[in-house]
Protein backbone atom coordinates (compact mmCIF):
# COMPACT_ATOMS: atom_id res chain seq x y z
CA UNK A 1 0.00 0.00 0.00
CA UNK A 2 2.88 2.39 0.72
CA UNK A 3 3.99 2.15 -2.90
CA UNK A 4 0.48 3.15 -4.02
CA UNK A 5 0.64 6.12 -1.62
CA UNK A 6 4.04 7.08 -3.07
CA UNK A 7 2.81 6.75 -6.64
CA UNK A 8 -0.27 8.84 -5.79
CA UNK A 9 1.83 11.61 -4.28
CA UNK A 10 4.14 11.59 -7.29
CA UNK A 11 1.13 11.83 -9.60
CA UNK A 12 -0.30 14.79 -7.71
CA UNK A 13 2.98 16.71 -7.71
CA UNK A 14 3.25 16.20 -11.49
CA UNK A 15 -0.42 17.01 -12.14
CA UNK A 16 -1.18 20.25 -13.97
CA UNK A 17 -4.42 20.70 -12.02
CA UNK A 18 -2.45 20.69 -8.80
CA UNK A 19 0.10 23.10 -10.21
CA UNK A 20 -2.70 25.41 -11.28
CA UNK A 21 -4.35 25.26 -7.88
CA UNK A 22 -1.08 25.96 -6.12
CA UNK A 23 -0.61 29.11 -8.20
CA UNK A 24 -3.69 30.31 -6.32
CA UNK A 25 -1.53 30.19 -3.22
CA UNK A 26 0.35 33.20 -4.60
CA UNK A 27 -2.68 35.19 -3.44
CA UNK A 28 -1.06 35.02 0.02
CA UNK A 29 1.29 37.74 -1.15
CA UNK A 30 -1.68 40.10 -1.57
CA UNK A 31 -3.17 39.49 1.86
CA UNK A 32 -1.12 42.09 3.84
CA UNK A 33 -1.93 44.76 1.23
CA UNK A 34 -5.67 43.95 1.19
CA UNK A 35 -5.79 43.73 4.98
CA UNK A 36 -4.10 47.10 5.36
CA UNK A 37 -6.93 48.70 3.39
CA UNK A 38 -9.28 47.99 6.30
CA UNK A 39 -7.29 50.59 8.38
CA UNK A 40 -8.19 48.70 11.56
CA UNK A 41 -8.06 45.10 12.74
CA UNK A 42 -5.44 44.51 10.04
CA UNK A 43 -3.99 41.46 11.80
CA UNK A 44 -7.43 39.92 12.39
CA UNK A 45 -8.30 40.49 8.75
CA UNK A 46 -4.96 38.98 7.64
CA UNK A 47 -5.74 35.97 9.77
CA UNK A 48 -9.28 35.69 8.38
CA UNK A 49 -8.13 36.00 4.77
CA UNK A 50 -5.24 33.56 5.28
CA UNK A 51 -7.43 30.89 6.87
CA UNK A 52 -10.14 31.39 4.25
CA UNK A 53 -7.61 31.12 1.43
CA UNK A 54 -6.19 27.91 2.92
CA UNK A 55 -9.72 26.54 3.22
CA UNK A 56 -10.50 27.46 -0.38
CA UNK A 57 -7.33 25.87 -1.76
CA UNK A 58 -7.87 22.71 0.29
CA UNK A 59 -11.44 22.55 -0.97
CA UNK A 60 -10.26 22.72 -4.58
CA UNK A 61 -7.66 20.03 -3.91
CA UNK A 62 -10.19 17.79 -2.14
CA UNK A 63 -12.79 18.10 -4.89
CA UNK A 64 -10.50 17.79 -7.90
CA UNK A 65 -7.96 15.32 -6.55
CA UNK A 66 -10.39 13.29 -4.45
CA UNK A 67 -13.12 13.32 -7.07
CA UNK A 68 -10.94 12.39 -10.01
CA UNK A 69 -8.21 10.14 -8.57
CA UNK A 70 -10.05 6.83 -8.71
CA UNK A 71 -12.33 7.79 -11.58
CA UNK A 72 -9.34 8.78 -13.74
CA UNK A 73 -7.64 5.44 -13.04
CA UNK A 74 -10.72 3.57 -14.22
CA UNK A 75 -11.46 5.88 -17.15
CA UNK A 76 -7.87 5.78 -18.44
CA UNK A 77 -7.68 2.01 -17.89
CA UNK A 78 -4.80 2.24 -15.41
CA UNK A 79 -6.71 -0.10 -13.11
CA UNK A 80 -6.36 -3.02 -15.55
CA UNK A 81 -2.61 -3.04 -15.17
CA UNK A 82 -2.45 -2.12 -11.48
CA UNK A 83 -5.13 -4.57 -10.37
CA UNK A 84 -3.37 -7.28 -12.38
CA UNK A 85 -0.63 -7.09 -9.75
CA UNK A 86 -0.82 -9.05 -6.49
CA UNK A 87 -2.56 -6.16 -4.82
CA UNK A 88 -6.03 -6.32 -3.33
CA UNK A 89 -8.57 -3.79 -4.52
CA UNK A 90 -9.03 -2.60 -0.95
CA UNK A 91 -5.29 -1.91 -0.56
CA UNK A 92 -5.25 -0.12 -3.88
CA UNK A 93 -8.21 2.09 -3.00
CA UNK A 94 -7.03 2.83 0.52
CA UNK A 95 -3.56 3.56 -0.90
CA UNK A 96 -4.98 6.05 -3.40
CA UNK A 97 -7.00 7.67 -0.61
CA UNK A 98 -4.00 7.69 1.74
CA UNK A 99 -1.82 9.40 -0.87
CA UNK A 100 -4.42 12.07 -1.57
CA UNK A 101 -5.10 12.63 2.14
CA UNK A 102 -1.39 12.83 2.91
CA UNK A 103 -0.99 15.37 0.16
CA UNK A 104 -3.80 17.53 1.61
CA UNK A 105 -2.05 17.40 4.99
CA UNK A 106 1.25 18.42 3.36
CA UNK A 107 -0.47 21.22 1.45
CA UNK A 108 -2.13 22.41 4.67
CA UNK A 109 1.27 22.45 6.39
CA UNK A 110 2.92 24.42 3.58
CA UNK A 111 0.01 26.84 3.31
CA UNK A 112 0.00 27.11 7.11
CA UNK A 113 3.63 28.24 7.08
CA UNK A 114 2.73 30.85 4.45
CA UNK A 115 -0.19 31.99 6.62
CA UNK A 116 2.08 32.26 9.68
CA UNK A 117 4.49 34.42 7.66
CA UNK A 118 1.68 36.67 6.39
CA UNK A 119 0.09 37.12 9.82
CA UNK A 120 3.49 37.73 11.46
CA UNK A 121 4.26 40.39 8.88
CA UNK A 122 0.87 42.08 9.32
CA UNK A 123 1.07 42.01 13.11
CA UNK A 124 4.60 43.44 13.02
CA UNK A 125 3.47 46.43 10.96
CA UNK A 126 0.05 46.87 12.58
CA UNK A 127 0.38 45.55 16.17
CA UNK A 128 -2.84 44.15 17.56
CA UNK A 129 -4.34 44.52 21.06
CA UNK A 130 -5.28 40.88 21.17
CA UNK A 131 -2.37 38.40 21.23
CA UNK A 132 -2.18 35.91 18.36
CA UNK A 133 -2.34 32.34 19.68
CA UNK A 134 -0.23 30.47 17.14
CA UNK A 135 -1.11 27.04 18.50
CA UNK A 136 -4.83 27.79 18.03
CA UNK A 137 -4.13 28.87 14.47
CA UNK A 138 -2.19 25.64 13.83
CA UNK A 139 -4.99 23.50 15.29
CA UNK A 140 -7.53 25.43 13.23
CA UNK A 141 -5.57 24.61 10.04
CA UNK A 142 -5.18 20.97 11.11
CA UNK A 143 -8.93 20.54 11.63
CA UNK A 144 -9.58 22.29 8.35
CA UNK A 145 -7.34 19.69 6.69
CA UNK A 146 -9.21 16.89 8.49
CA UNK A 147 -12.48 18.32 7.17
CA UNK A 148 -11.21 18.12 3.61
CA UNK A 149 -9.78 14.63 4.13
CA UNK A 150 -13.28 13.59 5.17
CA UNK A 151 -14.56 15.22 1.99
CA UNK A 152 -12.01 13.21 -0.01
CA UNK A 153 -13.41 10.04 1.55
CA UNK A 154 -16.86 11.14 0.36
CA UNK A 155 -15.44 11.74 -3.14
CA UNK A 156 -13.86 8.26 -3.14
CA UNK A 157 -17.16 6.68 -2.15
CA UNK A 158 -18.86 8.45 -5.06
CA UNK A 159 -16.03 7.37 -7.39
CA UNK A 160 -16.55 3.70 -6.59
CA UNK A 161 -20.12 3.75 -7.89
CA UNK A 162 -19.77 6.23 -10.72
CA UNK A 163 -18.74 5.72 -14.32
CA UNK A 164 -18.25 9.42 -15.00
CA UNK A 165 -16.70 12.32 -13.09
CA UNK A 166 -20.05 14.10 -12.57
CA UNK A 167 -21.05 12.26 -9.41
CA UNK A 168 -17.59 12.30 -7.76
CA UNK A 169 -17.06 16.01 -8.46
CA UNK A 170 -20.54 17.50 -8.20
CA UNK A 171 -21.69 15.03 -5.55
CA UNK A 172 -18.69 16.03 -3.45
CA UNK A 173 -19.42 19.72 -3.90
CA UNK A 174 -23.09 19.15 -2.97
CA UNK A 175 -22.05 17.16 0.12
CA UNK A 176 -19.66 19.95 1.11
CA UNK A 177 -22.37 22.58 0.83
CA UNK A 178 -24.95 20.47 2.67
CA UNK A 179 -22.47 19.30 5.32
CA UNK A 180 -21.59 22.91 6.12
CA UNK A 181 -25.12 23.76 7.21
CA UNK A 182 -26.46 20.53 8.74
CA UNK A 183 -25.59 21.70 12.26
CA UNK A 184 -27.52 24.98 11.87
CA UNK A 185 -30.48 23.21 10.25
CA UNK A 186 -30.54 20.61 13.03
CA UNK A 187 -30.43 23.29 15.70
CA UNK A 188 -33.19 25.21 13.93
CA UNK A 189 -35.57 22.25 13.61
CA UNK A 190 -35.07 21.51 17.29
CA UNK A 191 -35.73 25.10 18.35
CA UNK A 192 -39.10 26.66 19.16
CA UNK A 193 -38.77 28.78 15.99
CA UNK A 194 -39.46 25.69 13.86
CA UNK A 195 -42.97 25.11 15.19
CA UNK A 196 -44.45 25.81 11.78
CA UNK A 197 -42.47 23.00 10.14
CA UNK A 198 -44.20 19.67 9.56
CA UNK A 199 -42.94 16.67 11.58
CA UNK A 200 -41.96 14.98 8.33
CA UNK A 201 -39.60 17.82 7.38
CA UNK A 202 -38.15 17.77 10.89
CA UNK A 203 -37.63 14.03 10.69
CA UNK A 204 -36.00 14.35 7.28
CA UNK A 205 -33.69 17.11 8.52
CA UNK A 206 -32.71 14.96 11.50
CA UNK A 207 -31.96 11.95 9.27
CA UNK A 208 -29.84 14.10 6.98
CA UNK A 209 -28.06 15.55 10.00
CA UNK A 210 -26.94 12.10 11.07
CA UNK A 211 -26.30 10.86 7.54
CA UNK A 212 -24.31 13.76 6.09
CA UNK A 213 -20.93 14.74 7.44
CA UNK A 214 -21.06 17.63 9.88
CA UNK A 215 -18.37 19.99 8.63
CA UNK A 216 -19.40 22.73 11.04
CA UNK A 217 -17.70 20.88 13.90
CA UNK A 218 -14.31 21.25 12.16
CA UNK A 219 -14.53 25.04 11.82
CA UNK A 220 -12.30 26.72 14.39
CA UNK A 221 -11.69 29.96 12.50
CA UNK A 222 -13.47 32.15 15.05
CA UNK A 223 -11.27 30.70 17.82
CA UNK A 224 -8.13 31.36 15.78
CA UNK A 225 -9.07 34.89 14.67
CA UNK A 226 -10.24 36.15 18.08
CA UNK A 227 -7.80 34.04 20.13
CA UNK A 228 -10.62 32.26 21.91
CA UNK A 229 -9.77 29.17 23.97
CA UNK A 230 -10.30 25.86 22.19
CA UNK A 231 -12.88 23.44 23.61
CA UNK A 232 -10.65 20.47 24.37
CA UNK A 233 -13.46 17.94 24.74
CA UNK A 234 -15.12 19.23 21.61
CA UNK A 235 -11.88 18.74 19.67
CA UNK A 236 -11.53 15.18 20.92
CA UNK A 237 -15.11 14.46 19.95
CA UNK A 238 -14.59 15.95 16.49
CA UNK A 239 -11.39 13.91 16.02
CA UNK A 240 -13.22 10.73 17.04
CA UNK A 241 -16.10 11.68 14.71
CA UNK A 242 -13.57 12.13 11.89
CA UNK A 243 -12.00 8.70 12.49
CA UNK A 244 -15.34 6.88 12.68
CA UNK A 245 -16.90 8.70 9.73
CA UNK A 246 -13.87 8.26 7.46
CA UNK A 247 -13.64 4.62 8.54
CA UNK A 248 -17.27 4.01 7.61
CA UNK A 249 -16.95 5.80 4.27
CA UNK A 250 -13.80 3.92 3.33
CA UNK A 251 -15.26 0.58 4.40
CA UNK A 252 -18.29 1.19 2.20
CA UNK A 253 -16.10 2.41 -0.68
CA UNK A 254 -13.75 -0.59 -0.37
CA UNK A 255 -16.66 -3.04 -0.33
CA UNK A 256 -18.25 -1.49 -3.41
CA UNK A 257 -14.93 -1.18 -5.24
CA UNK A 258 -13.98 -4.80 -4.57
CA UNK A 259 -17.20 -5.87 -6.32
CA UNK A 260 -16.92 -3.47 -9.21
CA UNK A 261 -16.52 -5.01 -12.65
CA UNK A 262 -13.49 -3.75 -14.58
CA UNK A 263 -14.94 -4.04 -18.08
Amino acid at each position, binding site marked *: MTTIIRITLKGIFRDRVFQGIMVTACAFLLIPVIASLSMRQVTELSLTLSLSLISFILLLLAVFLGGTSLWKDIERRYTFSVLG*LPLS*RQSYMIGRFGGTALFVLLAAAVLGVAAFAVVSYSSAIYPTDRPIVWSTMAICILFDALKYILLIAVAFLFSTVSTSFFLPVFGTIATFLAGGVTQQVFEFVNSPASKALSPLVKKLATILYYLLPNFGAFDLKVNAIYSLPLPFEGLLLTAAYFVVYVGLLLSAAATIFSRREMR
Partner: protein
Amino acid sequence: MNAIEITGLYKQFPGKRMTKVDALKGLDLTIAAGEVFGFLGPNGAGKSTTIKLVMGLLRPTSGRAQIMGMDSNQAESRRHVGYLPENPAFYDYLSAEEYISFVGSQFKMEAALLAQRSEDVLKRLDLWDARKRPMRGYSKGMVQRVGLAQALVHDPDVYILDEPMSGLDPIGRALVKDIIFDLKARGKCVFFSTHITDDVEKVCDRVGVINKGELLVVENVETILQRGVQGYSVFVMNPDGAKEELFIEKAHLQAFIQQSVVNQQSIEKIEPRRKDMEAFFLEIVAQ
Protein backbone atom coordinates in the same frame (compact mmCIF):
# COMPACT_ATOMS: atom_id res chain seq x y z
CA MET B 1 -0.04 -28.64 -10.86
CA ASN B 2 -1.68 -26.92 -13.83
CA ALA B 3 -0.73 -23.32 -14.41
CA ILE B 4 -4.27 -22.24 -15.25
CA GLU B 5 -7.47 -24.16 -14.60
CA ILE B 6 -10.80 -22.82 -15.77
CA THR B 7 -13.93 -24.72 -14.75
CA GLY B 8 -17.45 -23.97 -16.00
CA LEU B 9 -16.68 -20.29 -16.34
CA TYR B 10 -19.81 -18.39 -17.23
CA LYS B 11 -20.22 -14.65 -17.60
CA GLN B 12 -23.34 -12.69 -18.24
CA PHE B 13 -23.40 -8.93 -18.78
CA PRO B 14 -26.45 -6.73 -18.54
CA GLY B 15 -27.59 -5.78 -22.04
CA LYS B 16 -29.97 -3.18 -23.38
CA ARG B 17 -33.57 -3.00 -22.12
CA MET B 18 -33.08 -5.32 -19.14
CA THR B 19 -31.72 -8.12 -21.33
CA LYS B 20 -28.72 -10.28 -20.49
CA VAL B 21 -25.81 -10.98 -22.78
CA ASP B 22 -23.92 -14.25 -22.44
CA ALA B 23 -20.31 -13.25 -22.92
CA LEU B 24 -18.91 -16.61 -21.90
CA LYS B 25 -20.80 -19.89 -21.83
CA GLY B 26 -19.36 -22.43 -19.43
CA LEU B 27 -15.72 -22.43 -20.42
CA ASP B 28 -13.57 -25.39 -19.34
CA LEU B 29 -9.88 -25.16 -20.06
CA THR B 30 -6.67 -26.39 -18.51
CA ILE B 31 -3.25 -25.06 -19.38
CA ALA B 32 -0.24 -26.95 -18.16
CA ALA B 33 2.92 -25.47 -16.70
CA GLY B 34 5.49 -24.84 -19.41
CA GLU B 35 2.89 -24.74 -22.16
CA VAL B 36 2.40 -21.97 -24.72
CA PHE B 37 -1.30 -21.70 -25.39
CA GLY B 38 -2.84 -19.48 -28.05
CA PHE B 39 -6.37 -18.30 -27.50
CA LEU B 40 -7.76 -17.56 -30.92
CA GLY B 41 -11.03 -15.91 -31.77
CA PRO B 42 -12.61 -13.12 -33.78
CA ASN B 43 -13.32 -9.73 -32.20
CA GLY B 44 -15.93 -9.96 -29.47
CA ALA B 45 -15.54 -13.74 -29.14
CA GLY B 46 -14.89 -13.64 -25.39
CA LYS B 47 -11.07 -13.77 -25.30
CA SER B 48 -10.57 -10.64 -23.20
CA THR B 49 -13.54 -11.48 -20.98
CA THR B 50 -11.93 -14.85 -20.23
CA ILE B 51 -8.61 -13.21 -19.43
CA LYS B 52 -10.23 -10.56 -17.23
CA LEU B 53 -12.08 -13.29 -15.34
CA VAL B 54 -8.85 -15.22 -14.86
CA MET B 55 -7.17 -12.05 -13.62
CA GLY B 56 -9.99 -11.25 -11.18
CA LEU B 57 -10.92 -8.04 -12.98
CA LEU B 58 -14.41 -9.40 -13.63
CA ARG B 59 -16.47 -11.59 -11.34
CA PRO B 60 -17.79 -14.81 -12.89
CA THR B 61 -21.55 -15.33 -12.98
CA SER B 62 -20.69 -18.95 -12.22
CA GLY B 63 -17.68 -21.25 -12.42
CA ARG B 64 -14.17 -20.43 -11.38
CA ALA B 65 -10.63 -19.92 -12.52
CA GLN B 66 -7.46 -20.90 -10.72
CA ILE B 67 -3.87 -19.83 -11.23
CA MET B 68 -1.25 -22.21 -9.87
CA GLY B 69 -3.94 -23.81 -7.72
CA MET B 70 -5.18 -20.55 -6.20
CA ASP B 71 -8.59 -19.03 -6.84
CA SER B 72 -8.12 -16.10 -9.19
CA ASN B 73 -10.29 -13.85 -7.02
CA GLN B 74 -7.48 -13.81 -4.48
CA ALA B 75 -4.87 -11.13 -5.08
CA GLU B 76 -2.18 -13.59 -4.02
CA SER B 77 -2.91 -15.80 -7.06
CA ARG B 78 -1.43 -13.04 -9.23
CA ARG B 79 1.94 -13.32 -7.52
CA HIS B 80 2.90 -15.98 -10.09
CA VAL B 81 1.60 -14.03 -13.07
CA GLY B 82 2.97 -11.52 -15.53
CA TYR B 83 -0.09 -9.88 -17.05
CA LEU B 84 -0.31 -7.69 -20.12
CA PRO B 85 -3.76 -6.13 -20.57
CA GLU B 86 -5.24 -5.44 -23.98
CA ASN B 87 -4.23 -1.95 -25.19
CA PRO B 88 -2.42 -1.32 -21.92
CA ALA B 89 -2.28 2.05 -20.21
CA PHE B 90 0.00 2.96 -17.35
CA TYR B 91 0.31 5.99 -15.07
CA ASP B 92 1.53 8.31 -17.78
CA TYR B 93 3.18 10.75 -15.39
CA LEU B 94 5.69 8.04 -14.52
CA SER B 95 8.66 7.03 -16.61
CA ALA B 96 9.04 3.43 -17.78
CA GLU B 97 11.80 2.94 -15.21
CA GLU B 98 9.64 4.24 -12.37
CA TYR B 99 6.71 2.07 -13.40
CA ILE B 100 8.84 -1.07 -13.66
CA SER B 101 10.25 -0.30 -10.25
CA PHE B 102 6.70 0.11 -8.87
CA VAL B 103 5.67 -3.25 -10.36
CA GLY B 104 8.78 -4.96 -8.97
CA SER B 105 8.06 -3.59 -5.51
CA GLN B 106 4.53 -5.01 -5.68
CA PHE B 107 6.13 -8.41 -6.21
CA LYS B 108 8.41 -7.76 -3.23
CA MET B 109 11.57 -8.01 -5.33
CA GLU B 110 14.85 -7.14 -3.63
CA ALA B 111 16.17 -3.73 -4.67
CA ALA B 112 19.38 -5.03 -6.27
CA LEU B 113 17.61 -7.77 -8.20
CA LEU B 114 14.90 -5.36 -9.28
CA ALA B 115 17.46 -2.86 -10.58
CA GLN B 116 19.21 -5.61 -12.54
CA ARG B 117 16.01 -7.11 -13.95
CA SER B 118 14.65 -3.68 -14.77
CA GLU B 119 17.77 -2.87 -16.78
CA ASP B 120 17.58 -6.25 -18.55
CA VAL B 121 13.94 -5.95 -19.63
CA LEU B 122 14.16 -2.30 -20.59
CA LYS B 123 17.19 -3.02 -22.76
CA ARG B 124 15.60 -6.11 -24.26
CA LEU B 125 12.46 -4.21 -25.18
CA ASP B 126 14.44 -1.31 -26.59
CA LEU B 127 13.20 1.15 -23.98
CA TRP B 128 16.52 1.87 -22.30
CA ASP B 129 17.09 5.24 -23.94
CA ALA B 130 13.53 6.38 -23.18
CA ARG B 131 13.42 4.93 -19.67
CA LYS B 132 13.54 8.28 -17.85
CA ARG B 133 10.94 10.05 -19.99
CA PRO B 134 7.33 10.25 -18.75
CA MET B 135 5.21 7.64 -20.54
CA ARG B 136 2.73 10.30 -21.69
CA GLY B 137 5.22 11.02 -24.49
CA TYR B 138 5.49 7.38 -25.61
CA SER B 139 4.10 5.98 -28.85
CA LYS B 140 1.51 3.17 -28.75
CA GLY B 141 4.17 0.61 -29.57
CA MET B 142 6.41 1.86 -26.78
CA VAL B 143 3.56 1.61 -24.25
CA GLN B 144 2.92 -1.94 -25.45
CA ARG B 145 6.59 -2.73 -24.88
CA VAL B 146 6.40 -1.23 -21.36
CA GLY B 147 3.48 -3.61 -20.84
CA LEU B 148 5.66 -6.54 -21.80
CA ALA B 149 8.55 -5.26 -19.69
CA GLN B 150 6.36 -5.01 -16.56
CA ALA B 151 5.03 -8.53 -17.20
CA LEU B 152 8.56 -9.90 -17.51
CA VAL B 153 10.40 -8.04 -14.75
CA HIS B 154 9.62 -10.42 -11.88
CA ASP B 155 10.23 -13.54 -13.99
CA PRO B 156 6.93 -15.28 -13.11
CA ASP B 157 5.96 -18.84 -14.01
CA VAL B 158 2.76 -17.85 -15.79
CA TYR B 159 2.29 -15.18 -18.43
CA ILE B 160 -1.16 -14.00 -19.41
CA LEU B 161 -0.91 -11.72 -22.41
CA ASP B 162 -3.96 -10.12 -24.00
CA GLU B 163 -3.12 -9.36 -27.64
CA PRO B 164 0.63 -8.98 -27.02
CA MET B 165 1.45 -8.13 -30.64
CA SER B 166 -1.17 -5.40 -30.90
CA GLY B 167 0.21 -2.00 -31.85
CA LEU B 168 3.68 -3.32 -32.60
CA ASP B 169 5.62 -2.86 -35.83
CA PRO B 170 7.14 -5.94 -37.56
CA ILE B 171 10.34 -5.58 -35.53
CA GLY B 172 8.35 -5.42 -32.30
CA ARG B 173 6.27 -8.44 -33.30
CA ALA B 174 9.38 -10.44 -34.07
CA LEU B 175 10.78 -9.41 -30.70
CA VAL B 176 7.65 -10.60 -28.89
CA LYS B 177 7.82 -13.93 -30.71
CA ASP B 178 11.45 -14.23 -29.66
CA ILE B 179 10.50 -13.52 -26.07
CA ILE B 180 7.76 -16.15 -26.14
CA PHE B 181 10.18 -18.71 -27.62
CA ASP B 182 12.62 -17.86 -24.87
CA LEU B 183 9.95 -18.25 -22.17
CA LYS B 184 8.96 -21.58 -23.69
CA ALA B 185 12.56 -22.76 -23.60
CA ARG B 186 12.72 -21.80 -19.93
CA GLY B 187 9.61 -23.85 -19.11
CA LYS B 188 7.27 -20.92 -18.51
CA CYS B 189 3.57 -21.06 -19.23
CA VAL B 190 2.30 -18.49 -21.71
CA PHE B 191 -1.41 -17.99 -22.28
CA PHE B 192 -2.04 -15.36 -24.90
CA SER B 193 -4.99 -14.17 -26.88
CA THR B 194 -4.85 -13.08 -30.46
CA HIS B 195 -6.88 -12.99 -33.62
CA ILE B 196 -3.79 -13.32 -35.77
CA THR B 197 -3.46 -16.96 -36.77
CA ASP B 198 0.13 -16.65 -37.91
CA ASP B 199 1.22 -15.78 -34.35
CA VAL B 200 -0.34 -18.98 -33.04
CA GLU B 201 1.13 -21.15 -35.78
CA LYS B 202 4.64 -19.95 -35.06
CA VAL B 203 4.85 -19.96 -31.27
CA CYS B 204 2.12 -22.09 -29.67
CA ASP B 205 2.03 -25.67 -28.44
CA ARG B 206 -1.76 -25.72 -28.32
CA VAL B 207 -4.52 -23.51 -29.58
CA GLY B 208 -8.07 -22.92 -28.40
CA VAL B 209 -10.63 -21.36 -30.69
CA ILE B 210 -13.42 -19.37 -29.09
CA ASN B 211 -16.39 -17.76 -30.78
CA LYS B 212 -19.53 -16.16 -29.36
CA GLY B 213 -18.48 -17.10 -25.85
CA GLU B 214 -18.03 -20.80 -26.59
CA LEU B 215 -14.79 -22.70 -26.74
CA LEU B 216 -15.13 -24.54 -30.05
CA VAL B 217 -11.95 -26.56 -30.12
CA VAL B 218 -8.66 -27.12 -28.32
CA GLU B 219 -5.97 -28.76 -30.39
CA ASN B 220 -2.20 -29.24 -30.70
CA VAL B 221 -0.76 -26.85 -33.27
CA GLU B 222 1.52 -29.56 -34.64
CA THR B 223 -1.44 -31.90 -35.17
CA ILE B 224 -3.39 -29.22 -37.00
CA LEU B 225 -0.47 -28.49 -39.27
CA GLN B 226 0.19 -32.18 -39.97
CA ARG B 227 -3.47 -32.84 -40.61
CA GLY B 228 -3.61 -29.95 -42.99
CA VAL B 229 -0.90 -31.27 -45.33
CA GLN B 230 -2.56 -31.81 -48.70
CA GLY B 231 0.49 -32.51 -50.82
CA TYR B 232 3.95 -31.26 -51.76
CA SER B 233 5.49 -28.81 -54.17
CA VAL B 234 8.49 -30.56 -55.65
CA PHE B 235 11.13 -28.58 -57.52
CA VAL B 236 13.00 -30.84 -59.96
CA MET B 237 15.74 -30.43 -62.53
CA ASN B 238 15.36 -32.60 -65.63
CA PRO B 239 18.37 -34.31 -67.33
CA ASP B 240 18.33 -31.55 -70.00
CA GLY B 241 18.80 -28.89 -67.29
CA ALA B 242 15.24 -27.55 -67.37
CA LYS B 243 13.66 -26.80 -64.00
CA GLU B 244 10.04 -27.34 -63.11
CA GLU B 245 7.72 -27.27 -60.09
CA LEU B 246 5.30 -30.14 -59.66
CA PHE B 247 2.45 -30.71 -57.22
CA ILE B 248 2.51 -34.25 -55.81
CA GLU B 249 -0.26 -35.57 -53.61
CA LYS B 250 0.65 -36.65 -50.09
CA ALA B 251 0.11 -40.37 -50.80
CA HIS B 252 2.22 -40.35 -53.99
CA LEU B 253 5.37 -38.65 -52.73
CA GLN B 254 7.42 -41.80 -52.11
CA ALA B 255 6.53 -43.23 -55.51
CA PHE B 256 7.41 -39.93 -57.20
CA ILE B 257 10.83 -39.82 -55.55
CA GLN B 258 11.60 -43.35 -56.71
CA GLN B 259 10.40 -42.55 -60.21
CA SER B 260 12.49 -39.39 -60.40
CA VAL B 261 15.64 -41.45 -59.66
CA VAL B 262 14.73 -43.71 -62.54
CA ASN B 263 14.07 -40.69 -64.76
CA GLN B 264 17.40 -39.14 -63.75
CA GLN B 265 15.65 -36.08 -62.42
CA SER B 266 17.30 -34.34 -59.52
CA ILE B 267 15.02 -33.09 -56.75
CA GLU B 268 16.08 -29.66 -55.58
CA LYS B 269 13.41 -28.85 -53.00
CA ILE B 270 10.26 -30.35 -51.45
CA GLU B 271 7.81 -28.06 -49.70
CA PRO B 272 4.64 -29.24 -47.97
CA ARG B 273 1.47 -27.60 -49.21
CA ARG B 274 -1.07 -27.45 -46.44
CA LYS B 275 -3.98 -25.61 -45.06
CA ASP B 276 -2.52 -23.12 -42.65
CA MET B 277 -3.81 -22.09 -39.24
CA GLU B 278 -5.94 -19.40 -40.84
CA ALA B 279 -7.82 -21.96 -42.91
CA PHE B 280 -8.29 -24.12 -39.81
CA PHE B 281 -9.52 -21.13 -37.82
CA LEU B 282 -11.94 -20.00 -40.54
CA GLU B 283 -13.27 -23.53 -40.90
CA ILE B 284 -13.95 -23.82 -37.17
CA VAL B 285 -15.52 -20.39 -36.83
CA ALA B 286 -17.70 -20.91 -39.91
CA GLN B 287 -19.21 -24.14 -38.50
